[in-house]
């Protein structure tokens, strides 16, 4: 049976790693066609620890960048790992119909894939207004952002994803380039379709790592997904000497 790996890491509140293969009693292989296979049959605690650590460092850098930008201290809690099914990915986002903001960045060079940052609508609005120095909007169901707000959110994504990539790049010595973020406001289910669509061919489970970012006053919920292709995964693991 073929195996591949995929990580989905998320920033604000949670982090997900998708890996395909077998770990303990879980059959959680996910797929990707026409790429080199990474054998995850002998996936062990070290590998999981490695991805947790990678996530920790990446998210830590992103938290620092966010702190500087928002001019308030933001802390990061240690992630917790658990397995979940595809359907549960959207329940993390409070149901498939919950409207969220998805910011997608393509990555290339030594690692190819994409990074998806998902923010709750209200949090995205709050974040945009904080960056723009505007008074808080009343909470509303409106899915439209004005041009300035969209631009502010793209910039937030740039900074978060940029610091995230820098962390991973520094740790692994791999070169990673990021594209300009693309912003989509839609149902969580529709946006998160990207994940199983990319890697859902072979498996039904994802490994889900929780990360929590908090400041004293409020919690901004966001989700950071790093989705490299399978070959890039193998490369990361090799580079770190744990393949």
């Amino acid at each position, binding site marked *: *049976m*073929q195996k591949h790996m995929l990580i989905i890491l998320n920033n604000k509140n949670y982090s997900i790693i998708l890996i395909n293969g077998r770990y303990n009693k879980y*059959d959680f*292989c996910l*797929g990707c*066609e026409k790429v080199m296979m990474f054998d995850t049959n002998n996936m062990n605690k070290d590998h999981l620890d490695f991805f947790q650590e990678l996530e920790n460092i990446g998210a830590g850098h992103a938290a620092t960048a966010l702190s500087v930008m928002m001019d308030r201290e933001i802390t990061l809690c240690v992630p917790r790992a658990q397995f979940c099914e*595809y*359907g549960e990915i*959207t329940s993390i986002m409070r*149901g*498939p*119909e919950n*409207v969220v903001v*998805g910011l*997608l960045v*393509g990555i*290339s060079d030594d690692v190819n*894939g*994409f990074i998806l940052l998902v923010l709750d609508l209200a949090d995205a609005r709050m974040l945009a207004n904080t960056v723009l120095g505007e008074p808080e909007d009343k909470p509303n169901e409106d*899915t439209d952002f004005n041009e300035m707000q969209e631009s502010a959110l793209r910039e937030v994504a740039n900074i978060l994803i940029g610091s995230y990539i820098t962390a991973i790049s520094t740790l692994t010595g791999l070169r990673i380039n990021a*594209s300009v973020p*693309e912003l*989509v*406001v*839609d*149902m*969580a*289910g*529709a*946006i*998160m*379709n*990207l994940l*199983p*669509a*990319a890697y*859902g*061919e*072979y*498996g*039904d489970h994802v490994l889900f790592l929780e990360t929590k970012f908090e400041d004293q006053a409020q919690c901004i919920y966001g989700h950071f997904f790093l989705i490299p292709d399978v070959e890039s995964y193998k490369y990361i693991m090799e580079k770190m000497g744990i393949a």
Partner: protein
Amino acid sequence: MATHTIGIADKIVSKAPDKLVTLGLGSCVGLVIYDPYKKVGGLVHIMLPTAPTNAPVTNKFKFADTAIEEMIRLVLQAGAARNQLKAKVVGGAHMFNNSYQTDVMGIGNRNVDVCQRVLKEHRIPIAAQDTGGSSGRSIEFSCEDNTLQIRTVSPKSVRLI
């Protein structure tokens, strides 16, 4: 009347007056196969176009090709007549417009293509279709009058096909 809601890579078969629902279709496809006279309908939430040939298929309802075959079998089992079967196809949106990663990004189109091809092979006419675009969709199929309600949030809209 009951409303049955299914998740990703899931299916449901029921009869009038029940309603079949799935939420947040992005690149995924919501496919209904029904018999308008017997009022039997089945809904499946398809994720990917074709099942892998080099690995075991753990869930047939994940892939368009295998899902359609299974769904035909299930609606017939539930009392539908083979020569009366019709289909409705919804979803397959292109959520992100990036040119990179075309394989992954074009998955919506491929999902719809495979659905159309496989339905044609099985000689099941597509009574209505609402596919592509860049909006997520939630759908509700009525086994009673065979209407399919489509809701989007961005932009906000409700329509029947």
